[in-house]
């Protein structure tokens, strides 16, 4: 359903960050992208969502070339993206954000369901402003809920585990499993967590702007855990021999 064809991305007047990535994501699957810090995972997600524009290559989504579509158009095509670092807004409430995301007013029950999937109670949060008063883990979970609310064809989550507590994390893993079971869209989750890796259909390892390895979980996970994959420096660059 999503094909990346030899995409590259360089920062203006700067380094090449994504160095030619080819990737095929299958419909209804849970794909987990992992790899060392600074390897290019968030960059890749931003390129898919249209937040950054690729320097070369093509992106095909549902058979359509979306390379030249901007972020709004891609959102309307069915791509949703939960930011690694959620954005705060003075004056917008949790309810406002969720309603913008689902594009319709939410009943209390619907809001409860949505927030419940990330371990939050609607009664306590719906009217809270998305300002600095929300804790890091709270705003992170609201960010995830805003993407769940979109019921998108492709939902991308950038390190959903970051900063959230054990209980909410378990809830989240359950939510991802449910979504996959219901075949409701394709999930692309960027994660460093073994528990998320262990529910993946496919694992993609990205380091130094390239796909280091990709394949079914059974194939990739054992070698990841055995640390065979990382004969790299901390940045994921291959060590020169």
């Amino acid at each position: 359903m999503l094909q990346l064809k030899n995409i590259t991305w360089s920062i203006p007047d700067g380094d090449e960050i994504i160095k030619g990535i080819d990737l095929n994501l299958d419909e209804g699957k849970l794909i987990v992208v992992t790899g060392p810090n600074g390897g290019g995972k968030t960059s890749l997600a931003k390129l898919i969502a249209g937040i950054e524009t690729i320097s070369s290559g093509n992106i095909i989504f549902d058979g359509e070339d979306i390379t030249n579509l901007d972020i709004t158009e891609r959102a309307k095509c069915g791509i949703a993206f939960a930011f690694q670092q959620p954005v705060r807004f003075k004056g917008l409430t949790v309810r406002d954000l969720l309603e913008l995301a689902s594009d319709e007013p939410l009943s209390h029950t619907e809001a409860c369901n949505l927030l419940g999937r990330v371990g939050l109670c609607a009664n306590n949060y719906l009217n809270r402003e998305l300002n600095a008063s929300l804790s890091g883990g709270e705003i992170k979970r609201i960010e995830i809920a805003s993407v769940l609310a979109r019921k998108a064809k492709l939902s991308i989550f950038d390190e959903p585990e970051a900063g959230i507590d054990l209980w909410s994390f378990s809830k989240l893993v359950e939510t991802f499993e449910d979504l996959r079971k219901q075949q409701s869209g394709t999930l692309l989750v960027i994660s460093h967590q073994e528990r998320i890796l262990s529910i993946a259909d496919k694992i993609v390892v990205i380091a130094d702007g390239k796909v280091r390895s990709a394949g079914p979980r059974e194939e990739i996970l054992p070698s990841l855990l055995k640390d065979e994959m990382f004969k790299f420096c901390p940045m994921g660059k291959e060590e020169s021999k």
Partner: protein
Amino acid sequence: MNDMTKQLLSMISDFDEKFEGAFNIREDSGCAGRQSSANIKITDKKDLPGIEIHIKPGTKGEKVYIPACVTHGDVNDLVYNDFYVGEDADVVIVAGCGVHSDSHAEARHNGIHRFFLEKNAKVLYEEKHIGTGNGKGEKNIDPVTDIFLADDAVMEMDTVQLGGVDKSLRKTSAKLGARAKLIVRERIMTDGEEYAKTDFDVSMDGEDSSVDLISRSVAKGHSYQEFLSTLNGKNRCSGHSECDAILVDNGTVNAAPALEASHVDAALIHEAAIGKIAGEQILKLRSLGLTEEEAQDRIIQGFLK
């Protein structure tokens, strides 16, 4: 009252063909309707144009409306209104001003309001400003508000001006007694060539008095806004002022907050932030399917809510 006044009234208050309770409607420097209630007496001022509003001690849960409308150009309305709020009263005062001009002539309203709150009185004061009409004549509103709070009195002032007013100069001063509390929430949006200035001067004279001043503004087009505030702490007291401004297009905002403390236990804080809408906020809303323009409008709407 004329149709334009009716239109303006419905924009600046919850007017729906009539007001409930006490009210005085000022139209083009005249009076277009007045009603007193058992507890709230409205009378003409003796020496100057304007009215006196006397609210009996202990009056609770009543609302009084004192809107002013200028419905055509070539009106320069000046009015002095005094509010006397008795001990333990707890009321809502809805002011507000609509100015309309379809001609080349200036339409201006200048309202000088004084509030005298007795001990333990509480007032919520709401004031909405609006300018309408396509005339070249300037639509100007220059409110002056002087507030005197006796011990334990509380005044909450909510002011909104969201467009259409070419020039506005708002001057607000307050003197607070012991444990008195002043809360001001101001929201302003200017566009085009509009100019808006607000100037607060609050004197915390009484022990444990407090003030919380929150201003949120958006300057679009080539508009210009100035925000001046001086909090004077003359006793053990706490003062907080916050000025948050968003710039769009070529808007300009100049914020000059001042704190003056002349008592060792005066605690005064000021926060100010001016800038354009954060790019990531726009990106987040666009990733939910909004266009760039829709995202900007939604962020501003929330910010000024």
